[in-house]
């Protein structure tokens, strides 16, 4: 047994994150680590990397107990990590990021930039051939950042154990498949991989063993071949998975959002589309295809010179977010840490910031009432089943999936006409995912137009009544009904490869 963890416990100021977790990983295996949001997966990983010091329990490597006091020690043991929250140096390029904390190739006393670039280009060729390696990380999309993290973990001295905490959360099918291949190559070389994911189908396809955590303790483990998807769900939550409701097909309802003649993409070609009342329009594309950019323009976070966007017939001023909110718009951004949460403010305030008048002490006075803040937070907590302590805790004390629910909850309590969801369930467990899907559907049923992006093909098919595919800044397909199949979608998503814009 390469790695054997027994009875690991960890408390965070009262809250139990780990309560006797066990985990055994063999060399050369791909081990799926599963559990609901807040089950303790990331905490377990952090104990392995020396970022969290466990209160009790043992970690054995090749049968000998080890204590891991820091990242450097963990790396020296041959461990590599992809952490759940993206952590790149914003003004470093992919190449530079991959070498942070590593041994640099040198020429004399100086670092050898050419050798660095070469080493990374080699790894990138297999994982992400399209990833721009010489652009600062701050200008990469979330998915591209994730790819950089993956490359980082696979670079350098050979590892014995690679831990991946939700590496595919913002990758679409194409990139995810390349990662799967890389993982298989690793395991063929005898490297053990711990793979955390909320995409159960992926886990079923990729992993050979699994361990399920529930409330910080191991609820079960075994070989993937001996269990099926419902069985995993039952182990994780103790409940049955909610069957995905069939796609709602909207009646001939009026268009709520119309986008016409919007210049978009590297060629500034014009984009037009409409979403009818009750419709959920899914946007699909590869990493970097421009989905988030398009949604940001629709949301008014970026301006546009030509074209127009109308909501319920009224023209929206380019670049005015306030105008969208007033007209009944709502937006869930993709990167919760950088675009979503105000981490220095309480959970309750994060939930209220977009609609402060709703938590006034007196309707007429611009004074915020603590009671109202708390009531609003508790109502949202109940509605979305957020696992949290006090509404006045900081959002970062929540698990990733629960943080995601906060972004959703922010828009509660107002009539919603337009709902923009950029990767709404990134890092959310199956149970919560179903709840969020139900929520999106209920907004749609109430008459809102929903514009959604997801990298998860299952989610896309489960939710959307129509799908637009973006490739290289252009809409390459508009699919619904019978032609809405994974094959058609993927095909359209890869279209740009053949006609790559030389100016891009």
């Amino acid at each position, binding site marked *: 047994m390469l790695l054997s963890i027994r009875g690991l416990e960890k408390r965070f100021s009262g809250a139990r994150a780990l309560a006797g977790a066990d985990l055994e990983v063999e060399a050369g295996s791909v081990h799926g680590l599963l559990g609901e949001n807040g089950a303790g997966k990331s905490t377990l990983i952090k104990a392995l990397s020396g970022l969290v010091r466990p209160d009790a329990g043992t970690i054995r490597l090749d049968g000998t107990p080890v204590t891991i006091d820091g990242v450097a020690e963990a790396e020296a043991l041959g461990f590599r990590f992809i952490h759940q929250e993206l952590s790149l140096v914003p003004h470093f390029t992919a190449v530079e990021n991959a070498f942070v904390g590593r041994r640099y190739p040198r020429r004399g006393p100086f670092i050898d930039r050419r050798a660095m670039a070469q080493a990374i280009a080699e790894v990138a060729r297999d994982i992400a051939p399209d990833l721009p390696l010489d652009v600062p990380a701050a200008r990469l999309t979330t998915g591209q950042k994730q790819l950089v993290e993956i490359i980082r973990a696979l670079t350098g001295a050979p590892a014995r154990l690679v831990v991946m905490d939700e590496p595919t959360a913002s990758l679409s099918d194409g990139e995810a498949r390349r990662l799967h291949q890389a993982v298989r190559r690793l395991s063929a070389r005898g490297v053990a991989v711990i793979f955390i994911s909320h995409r159960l189908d992926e886990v079923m396809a990729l992993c050979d063993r699994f361990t399920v955590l529930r409330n910080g303790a191991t609820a079960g483990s075994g070989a993937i071949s001996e269990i099926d998807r419902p069985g995993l769900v039952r182990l994780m939550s103790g409940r049955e998975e909610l069957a995905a409701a069939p796609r709602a097909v909207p009646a001939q309802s009026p268009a709520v959002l119309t986008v016409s003649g919007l210049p978009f993409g590297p060629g500034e070609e014009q984009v037009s589309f409409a979403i009818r009342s009750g419709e959920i329009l899914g946007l699909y594309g590869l990493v970097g295809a421009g989905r988030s950019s398009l949604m940001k323009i629709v949301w008014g976070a970026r301006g546009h010179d030509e074209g127009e966007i109308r909501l319920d017939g009224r023209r929206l001023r380019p670049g005015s977010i306030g105008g969208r909110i007033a007209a009944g718009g709502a937006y869930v951004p993709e990167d919760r840490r950088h*675009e979503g949460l105000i981490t*220095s403010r309480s959970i309750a305030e994060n939930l209220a910031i*977009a609609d402060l008048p709703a938590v006034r002490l007196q309707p007429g006075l611009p004074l915020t009432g603590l009671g109202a803040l708390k009531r609003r937070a508790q109502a949202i907590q109940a509605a979305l089943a957020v696992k949290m302590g006090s509404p006045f805790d900081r959002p970062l004390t929540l698990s990733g999936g629960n943080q995601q629910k906060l972004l959703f909850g922010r828009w509660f309590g107002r009539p919603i006409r337009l709902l923009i969801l950029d990767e709404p369930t990134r890092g959310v467990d199956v149970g919560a995912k179903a709840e969020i899907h139900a929520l999106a559907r209920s907004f749609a049923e109430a008459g809102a137009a929903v514009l959604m992006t997801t990298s998860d093909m299952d989610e896309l098919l489960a939710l959307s009544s129509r799908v637009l595919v973006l490739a290289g800044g252009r809409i390459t397909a508009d699919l619904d009904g019978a032609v809405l199949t994974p094959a058609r979608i993927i095909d359209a998503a890869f279209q740009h490869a053949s006609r790559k814009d030389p100016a891009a």
Partner: protein
Amino acid sequence: MTGFVRRFGTLAALLVLIAAFSLVSPGAFGSAGNLINITQQMTLLAIVAIGATVVMAVGEFDLSTAAIVSFGGILAVTLFKLGVPPPLACLAVLLAAAAFGALSGFVVARFEVLSFIATLSVGTIIGGVTFWLCQGATLFGDIPAGFRDIGRGTLFGLPTLTWWLIATALAAWLLLDKLEIGRRLYAIGGNREAARLAGVRIVPNTMFAFTVSAVLSALVGILLTARIGSANPTGGGGYLLSAYAAVFLGMTAFREGESNVPGTLVGAAIIAVIGNGLTILGVSTFLQDIITGSIILAAVLVRRVGRQGG
């Protein structure tokens, strides 16, 4: 225990300081009269620091404060010399300062210029204007006695300056902690992009924060002139670093890493108490600096070490 140190370390440091000085010098330091006088001595610094607190709530710096303090005093006396009645003159000063603050805020928010360099430039310009107004000279005379009373004497048993501090602190606390706009400012300071995407308007809110800071600095310039009866073109120079020291000291009091009005008051009080106490004890100025630096460092460290233990 460590929890307490962690949350209230700086406040505890203030209380320990007061207790220690009172023990050593019960008659002079510990007298009610002196303690009240400290509130007056800390007023000007504290008001500048409260302005800095508001700007730091949006995550920015305002390095033009010192220049605006000097500017406020010089412009006020210049207007007095022209025969403008004091209330009107003060209003004009505050409006002029507000314009400079709004300019800084606009440049910072609209063009995303780093606030450090933007306010340093605006401060340099204001400094030039100030020197030009008075030709570098200290302005004295033509200061109406009625005007001087807003910065000296007592009112209902407390020094007039102390009332200004109470009023300003109360208003700023309401603004940042109770009013909606305060939550917006903190949201911008906490995560600008997230706040923007949630519909908080960055430009007007940032401009507002810088305007408040500028107006408070100009108010201090006016009060300083009333207090000392003259205006000097570099008279505000001493306030910049101490004001930010007060804010930063305060950030470790009460809350984690956010500027806040009660904390800033504690910070300003620490600085004032050290200065007052050491002078009363007859410690030489040179040694005072060494002790002051060490005490501030200790006050911050105590809390941090408490944290490491917790």
